[in-house]
């Protein structure tokens, strides 16, 4: 396209590759608000109540504003995987488990997000039973546990509370859920009716 004033371009003109609109750093002209300047272009990024720290991202072929996050929060993709969002991404859930509870799935909720990894500290008060385990979304549970006999051991389960030979509660990570996770607990043998304390650190 040959050089032409913008005001003289017909409304239906289609720009071709290679056509350029020169920018000017001169904010003068009349009217100033219609002059194509870097300053005026940047003004088009005003997408609401913009503030220092805000970020902009593409949304449905347009720009959308992500308001600045809370101090020390981290940037994540939202659960739908469509837009960024700020969040702490860490939650602690405390719980209990009866040592004589039946085998079955148990859901733990309230994390506020779908964890990618979970770390657990577990024990039964005034006994030597204790366990430190970690799990990811894939079946890769691991734990170190302190047994009834004072022996420290390790194994491929998330939680291992070993009360006596052939008597224990164990758990593996079944699923990472939208608001927490689900464990599959297995009761082995006739355990006593003590209560285990569980502390989960959920990481988004």
């Amino acid at each position, binding site marked *: 396209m040959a050089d032409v004033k913008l005001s003289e371009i017909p409304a239906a003109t289609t720009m071709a590759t290679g056509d350029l609109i020169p920018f000017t750093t001169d904010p003068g002209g009349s009217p100033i608000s219609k002059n194509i300047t870097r300053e005026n272009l940047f003004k088009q990024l005003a997408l609401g109540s913009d503030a220092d720290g805000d970020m902009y991202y593409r949304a449905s072929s347009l720009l959308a504003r992500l308001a600045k996050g809370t101090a020390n929060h981290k940037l994540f993709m939202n659960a739908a995987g469509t837009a960024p969002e700020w969040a702490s991404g860490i939650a602690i*859930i405390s719980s*209990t488990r009866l040592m004589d*509870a*039946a085998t079955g799935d148990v859901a733990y*909720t*309230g994390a506020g997000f779908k964890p990618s990894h979970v770390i657990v500290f577990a024990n039964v008060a*005034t006994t030597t039973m204790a366990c430190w385990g970690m799990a990811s979304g894939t079946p890769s549970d691991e734990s170190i546990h302190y047994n009834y006999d004072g022996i420290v051991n390790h194994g491929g389960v998330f939680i291992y509370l070993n009360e006596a030979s052939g008597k224990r509660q164990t758990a593996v990570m079944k699923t990472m859920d939208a608001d927490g996770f689900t464990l599959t607990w297995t009761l082995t043998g006739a355990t006593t009716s003590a209560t285990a304390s569980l502390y989960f650190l959920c990481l988004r």
Partner: protein
Amino acid sequence: MRICIHKTTRRILELQSAATPGTLIRNALNAGFKETDIEEREVDRAGYDAARAEDPVVAAEAERIAVGELIQAKIREQAIAALIAEGKITADGKTVKGKS
């Protein structure tokens, strides 16, 4: 926090610190309890302690712990008395040189 109680035995089946309502009920049902036999409550620390006070298993555990602590204290007391009698430690718990 939320707790789930077995109405008949008053046992606390489960506690969760931040569970959404209904989570503990579903867990109990999944473990084989009948819906009419269980109750989910939102409680604060005092409410949890009150529920624990009614839980016979917790009471038995507390009794067992108390007895264990009494036994430990008695053993410690007797051991200290024996060491003092043997001249290995003084009455204020200090070791006697050459005797320890």
